[in-house]
């Protein structure tokens, strides 16, 4: 085996082009999981249309022995199952790569590339001969290519068999038919081509202690563990799967043993205006409540978010960001709501935001969001995105500490109220800007009136300038307290020097890979990943300590950079934006090119000009 061949082991990208609604998702998952169970780090990304059936869809599996999770921007093996996108798909294959196609119908006219290897397998023919029914044949054709790939990549069929057994535990007949399709593909490939390809898998031991999960499922699990009981939402891609997962988990694990009743309320609201209202009403009344939405929903929730900020009612909102403005591209990813969330609503409002970068953080930050919302008595927005939320991420297994108890914040119980002479809702007794609240039904002395109109620290209606300002200023003291409570930025300053990268959320994987690539080219960068708004002290320090700062984000208008210039002392001229906003997840090569173009003028870059 040549050196270049061995470099391709466990380091390549497979892209599968299919048609929406043909059941390719299960085949792709099967392949990815089989690789994962072989101990090899792997990442899956789904590029799907805003459509239910019939439009092109792609799935990308990146096998990476180094554990890189971002898009590499390269395709080594294309499984071209969609005639409509066939010529485009063929063009995308990197020189030296492979094209797998259904040779039932020969396509000589399309096979124009000399620099790649075409592998034709008569998938439709195999399935037509072995299965009955149109739908079954289509589904099995997709499972069949998984078998072909298993042979070409030297995957252990035992993993596949086991995975099928787990998936169809309740429908054993499906295990047999699926396995038959796998074997048909597998045997056909073995008989026709020299298997495995030089570009193949080899067992490793790098995935134990890890799971493969999407960010929305992880966040939903966080809500379950946080003790959330009220979930209200209005369906919108890409947030719906978070709510679906919460319901599925709760239907299994939140049923009261004795009565069979549900220890949760799951409410499909009439719109996002109502969804956030329900969350605020429930949180006000002492339940942990949340909603999940995307940009259009955030826009609708603005008025209520201002009420919750000003009347100081906890609320947890997941914003699974997608491409805007307006309906935009609902099934593509973006970080376009950073500004809209930070200052959501009219008047002087500032909202606490958390920025998870991966599925693991989605889980932990979901729990944290509830604790912060109740501790600070304010909305907490968790800004995930389509890439994090709907793609499968390899991440460390979630550890759960049984000692955890929800932080209900400053909530007075009956005995505590009893001891008071009189209860006042908005008096800052502790000097941290956070006041005490009570729940209805606890004690007649506990009553107070919640309103979005001007109110005094005693909870009374007011139009008095002094009283109004007193309260608004106290909210700033609370904001300062929030800075100390929110998750700190993650800083990697091992490179030393004065050049840094600043980013948020799902850019993380691409940045870490880019940093390795740049280091190999002699460019060392320090990295700060911001994880919350308000910005903690360490953000200010990192910005001050660097002369050149690349701000990497996935939107057109440099929203993170704008927020940094508004909320820190940083000198604007030091911040150079690398902006990726085509709707696809950012790749490492995009960042490498952008950084080099700035540091070594004359190099080509795809990055939008720094501001």
């Amino acid at each position, binding site marked *: 085996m040549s050196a270049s061949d061995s470099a391709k082991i466990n380091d390549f990208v497979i892209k599968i082009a299919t048609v929406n609604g043909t059941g390719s998702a299960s085949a792709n998952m099967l392949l990815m999981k089989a690789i994962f169970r072989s101990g090899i780090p792997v990442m899956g990304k789904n590029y799907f249309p805003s459509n239910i059936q019939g439009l092109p869809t792609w799935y990308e599996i990146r096998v990476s022995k180094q554990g890189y999770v971002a898009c590499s921007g390269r395709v080594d093996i294309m499984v071209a199952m969609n005639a409509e996108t066939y010529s485009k798909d063929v063009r995308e294959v990197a020189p030296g790569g492979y094209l797998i196609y259904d040779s039932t119908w020969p396509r000589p006219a399309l096979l124009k590339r000399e620099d790649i290897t075409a592998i034709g397998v008569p998938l439709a023919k195999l399935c037509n001969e072995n299965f009955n029914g149109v739908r079954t044949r289509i589904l099995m054709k997709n499972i069949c290519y998984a078998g072909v790939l298993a042979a070409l990549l030297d995957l252990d069929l035992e993993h596949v068999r086991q995975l099928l057994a787990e998936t169809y535990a309740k429908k054993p007949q499906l295990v047999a038919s699926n396995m038959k399709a796998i074997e048909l593909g597998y045997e056909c490939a073995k008989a026709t081509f020299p298997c495995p390809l030089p570009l193949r898998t080899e067992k490793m031991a790098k995935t134990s202690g*890890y799971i*493969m999960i999407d960010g929305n499922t992880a966040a939903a699990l966080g809500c*379950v563990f946080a*003790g959330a*009981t*009220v979930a*209200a939402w209005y369906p919108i891609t890409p947030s719906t799967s978070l709510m679906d997962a919460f319901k599925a*988990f709760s239907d299994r*694990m*939140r049923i*009261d043993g004795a009565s*069979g*009743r*549900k*220890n*949760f*309320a*799951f*409410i499909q*609201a*009439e719109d996002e*205006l*109502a969804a*956030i*209202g*329900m969350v*605020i*009403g*429930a949180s*006000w*009344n*002492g*339940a942990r*409540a949340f909603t999940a939405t995307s940009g259009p929903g955030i826009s609708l929730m603005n008025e*209520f978010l201002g*009420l919750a900020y000003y009347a100081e009612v906890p609320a947890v909102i997941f914003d699974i960001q997608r491409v805007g403005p307006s309906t935009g591209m609902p099934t593509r990813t973006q970080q376009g709501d950073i500004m809209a969330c930070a200052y959501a609503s009219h008047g002087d409002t500032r909202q606490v935001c958390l920025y998870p970068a991966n599925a693991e953080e989605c889980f932990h930050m979901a729990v944290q969001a509830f604790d912060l919302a109740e501790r600070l008595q304010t909305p907490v927005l968790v800004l995930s995105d389509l890439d994090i939320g709907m793609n499968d991420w390899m991440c460390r*297994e*979630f*550890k*759960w*500490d049984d000692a*955890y*108890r*929800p932080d209900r914040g400053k909530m007075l119980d009956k005995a505590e109220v009893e001891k008071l002479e009189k209860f006042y809702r908005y008096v800052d007794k502790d000097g941290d800007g956070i006041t005490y609240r009570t*729940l*209805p*039904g*606890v004690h*007649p002395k*506990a*009553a*107070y*009136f919640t*309103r*979005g109109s001007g109110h*005094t620290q005693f909870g*009374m*209606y*007011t139009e*008095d300038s002094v009283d109004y300002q007193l309260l608004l200023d106290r909210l700033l003291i609370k904001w300062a307290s929030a800075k100390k409570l929110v998750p700190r930025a993650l800083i990697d300053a091992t490179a030393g020097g004065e050049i840094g990268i600043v980013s948020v959320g799902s850019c993380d994987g691409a940045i870490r890979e880019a940093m390795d690539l740049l280091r190999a080219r002699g460019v060392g960068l320090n990295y700060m990943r911001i994880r919350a708004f308000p910005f903690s002290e360490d953000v200010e320090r990192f910005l001050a300590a660097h002369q050149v700062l690349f701000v990497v984000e996935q939107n057109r208008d440099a929203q993170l950079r704008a927020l940094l210039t508004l909320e820190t002392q940083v000198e604007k001229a030091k911040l150079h934006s690398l902006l990726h906003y085509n709707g696809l997840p950012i790749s490492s090569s995009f960042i490498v090119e952008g950084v080099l173009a700035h540091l070594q003028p004359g190099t080509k870059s795809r990055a939008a000009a720094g501001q």
Partner: protein
Amino acid sequence: MTFIAKPKIAHPSLPRNPLGMTRRDYEGALSTLCAGCGHDSITAAVVEACWELAIEPQNLVKLSGIGCSSKTTAYFVNGAHGFNSVHGRMPSIAMGANAANRNLHYIGVSGDGDTLSIGLGQFCHAIRRNLNMLYIIENNGVYGLTKGQFSASADVGSKAKKGETNFQPPIDAVLLALTLGASFVARSFSGDKEQLVPLIQAGLKHKGFALIDVLSPCVTFNDHEGSTKSYAYTREHYEPAIHTDFVPLQQAITAEYAAGATLPVVLHDGSRIVLRKLDASYDPTDRAACAATIQERLKEEEYLTGLLFFEPGQPEFHDLNGTPEGALNAVPYEALSPGSAGMQKILARYR
């Protein structure tokens, strides 16, 4: 504007309810509405109803949107938590609050603007969910707080104070609620406390969504000649169809009712509502007939009033959702978290 506290000295001879509380104990902050505003009379009826029912103040939750009407939640039952939310969105706050604790009394106060324009969607969906609450619309045909624009309940031909005539057909909350499947639908008049108090009591005790559309004249912007929501017009055109008596649990029915014309209904907690037909042909249990009659009489410029439709026993939100009898906000955390052992089981699916 500052808050004026009412003197809280109860005369020893003031009547007390079974909790030992006087009517004054059920009052709230001093009203800041215009003198003579119908809304204040409704507030007084709510105070009376709660006192008579001997509701523990902390077990009442007061919710409202925005408007003169929505302000009134501050003017009754000081010992209850209140939430004056945003314009038209009180039903969602009520839904969330009720989801968190099903074992409190929820009373929502809204206006015709708050409910029938900006909040129309939430109003309809609260009915569809059969949210267990009493929903009072203080209906004056105008937006009082923004100075007298027509609301969606303004009748065709009704004249605004400045002389403008309304030509758009009104949305009638009662007819709407009937078509949406509401199980308790009433109309009343702020000037008829005798009718209103038992309706409020029955509405608070009803399990499910109870609507009372209360004609409540705005003396400042809609009480003139040519208005169809003025005191004079309402007095003249309102027609009790059903007389409602609320009989609390402890009390025996004492009044004499002519057989055939009365309909006693036992509520879920054992208290009773006795409906007395004032109009022999009107059947408050026949939804379609009710809607037809109400509509016919509206055409004749007559507001039928009373508990116009009643169908107890429909499952409310929690019955449909399958939540436990106790409050969700009181379920101990231990019963909510799958714990580390549960986590291991969950993770197995993702390996």
